[in-house]
């Protein structure tokens, strides 16, 4: 009786998988890298390089003209313990994030629901709602300076029909943030389009079955549409948070952080430190940038981890 030893089919671990490839596959891999090398080189030079450089600079007092001295964690300590504007700008930004993400997700969802019905000129309506999203932001801020004008602005004119007294919008610290939040609805088109794609991915069979069971439109919305849309909502919330934390251009052009620091956003404060102050506080600005990165990262992680409880992937 012979006994044959059966060798288990176990892939041998190697530190260099490239070496395990056949010459043909190796050549194929090399060609692949060659084709993506322009992008890879650009990534290293223009993204990873500055990324690492800014991390190093955040531990120095670099001011462009002077090489900068190593200061350890001084910049980070200063931000958290000795800089009122850091907290003011962070608070303003958080308020803006919560407000603008809520507005755009809810409004985008409602618009997507409306534009997912069979109405005349549907393509036209979808286009009209999307067009504001692709207008350059500087042009958008100029438009909204007129919309929010306290004397002759469109918004006050419209609110006047409902008996609302003239609001001062960007000229008052009490209403400046509100004005920018209203303005954030301008970009609802992007969120709407993504929601629309999600709605159109919901099989009609579910709605048909629910109708047969006697569910009305509201019940179908709550029990079918919204649960099945949670992955899309999750995506829009994450992207919305990441974008909203970087709010900058509208504050720079429309209010320059005023009045009374009411619209002093984090990115604007970072920009002032890097390019507005003399000598430029590049080291400190780099530290601010990394603090923002960590905040956005942690928040995104929290949302992702929480998604297990409320995002339904259909399985």
């Amino acid at each position: 009786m012979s006994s044959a030893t059966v060798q288990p089919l176990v892939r041998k671990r190697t530190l260099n998988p490239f070496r395990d490839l056949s010459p043909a596959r190796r050549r194929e891999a090399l060609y692949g890298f060659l084709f993506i090398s322009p992008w890879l080189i650009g990534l290293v030079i223009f993204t990873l390089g500055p990324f690492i450089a800014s991390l190093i600079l955040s531990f120095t007092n670099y001011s462009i003209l002077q090489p900068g001295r190593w200061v350890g964690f001084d910049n980070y300590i200063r931000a958290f313990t000795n800089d009122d504007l850091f907290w003011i700008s962070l608070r303003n930004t958080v308020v803006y994030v919560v407000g603008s993400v809520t507005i755009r997700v809810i409004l985008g969802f409602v618009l997507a629901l409306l534009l997912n019905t069979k109405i005349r000129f549907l393509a036209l309506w979808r286009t009209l709602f999307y067009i504001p999203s692709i207008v350059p932001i500087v042009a958008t801020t100029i438009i909204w300076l007129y919309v929010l004008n306290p004397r002759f602005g469109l918004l006050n004119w419209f609110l006047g029909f409902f008996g609302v007294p003239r609001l001062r919008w960007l000229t008052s610290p009490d209403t400046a943030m509100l004005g920018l939040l209203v303005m954030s609805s301008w970009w609802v088109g992007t969120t709407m389009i993504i929601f629309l794609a999600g709605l159109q991915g919901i099989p009609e069979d579910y709605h048909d079955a629910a109708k047969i069971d006697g569910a009305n439109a509201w019940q179908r919305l709550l029990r079918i549409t919204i649960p099945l849309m949670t992955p899309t909502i999750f995506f829009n919330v994450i992207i919305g948070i990441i974008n909203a934390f970087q709010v900058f251009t509208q504050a720079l052009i429309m209010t320059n952080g005023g009045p009374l620091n009411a619209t002093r956003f984090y990115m604007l404060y970072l920009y002032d430190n890097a390019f507005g102050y003399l000598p430029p506080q590049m080291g400190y600005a780099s530290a601010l940038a990394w603090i923002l990165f960590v905040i956005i990262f942690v928040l995104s992680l929290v949302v992702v981890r929480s998604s297990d409880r409320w995002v339904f992937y259909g399985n």
Partner: protein
Amino acid sequence: MEQQIAAFQAANPWITVNMTLQPWEQRLETLLTSVAAGDPPHVTMLGRQDLPSFVLQNALTPLDEFMERDGITPDMFLESEWRGAQYNGQTWILPQPTGGALNIAWYNKTMFAEAGLDPESFPDTWEELWEAAQALTIQTDGFLDRVGVNVATTGGETPAFIVWLNANGGDWLSEDGRTILFNSPQGLEALQFMVDFTNEINGGIEEVQSFYSQTGEWENGPFYNNYEAIMLNGSWALFLIQDFSPDIEFGIAPLPIGPSGNPDVRGTAWGGWGYTIPRNDDLPEAELEAAWLLTKWLTTEIEDEGACWFIQQQQRPSPLSECDGYLLDGVTHPRAEEILNVMLYDRWVPIAPIQPQLNEVITNMTDEAMFGVKSAEQALADGAAAAQALLDAFWAEQDAS
């Protein structure tokens, strides 16, 4: 500018000049990065309000040796202009155009007459300005229809508080740039004046900002369209008025003084511009010499199409003592003497190396008082403390390095 450069090249055929205009917002950023990269322009225009910081960052070339060699002396310039060209005992920039004539009161004589005021006599004190503004300001149901004068802005880049403090005989910063001085009786008077004037005559800062949000700059400015009786602006406003509202009969006057003010001191000589040579350790001697010759042409040339000629084309005050900036084609502008007389009341005001940060503190301090968040006294004390803290931190770092 191109004509000036062409004349320079004709006079110096071995030198070729390439001129590049920079966007306003990126001008400092571009200059700083070019110096850091070791490839700055040979000559650049620089705001004198940016000078201290650039000097302390070792970004500029001192000009004293060149000046001594070529006989360029301080008395060639107006004294208030010259002071801003020096820092730490050395000369780093030659002035062009002026830093003075920033705070001129341009007033509508017709409105003055209609309001029962003497159109040939502008208010001399803050009290008189208050009374005049009461007659000139028009409001309907709490909304401004016409502003007599807005004291929250005073033309140029100088924070309005510093202008009014100066007109009230006060100092904002010690000459060595290390000590904040504006938390003083004169400072409190100035800030309280701004707050009270804005609240009681102009209906509050929010109403003022709301009013000015409906007007614009340039041809849409309120003064040019009869929405403002008194405009506080620099000498360049002469041509704006002539271009945008040639029918307005206007007067020119220096700022009124406050209760603690000096009748001979009313306006600030703050900042202004000039030409300087950025530091470049690798620059060959011949190129450094060419840079100096261009700088000299742009700032001191009286005879040919240089500094004086350039200012005369613009019809503005010249920082050069011997140059009549308003003389063009053999004729001096009829309003030149009035503007030059206003300049006589200017006083040089020191600039800090961290001026943008201090401007921010002062603006915030003024806003806190204007918006009623703090009393003028508290806002002034807090603002001074914040400004001093920033200065102390800067100088501690500077002295340690």
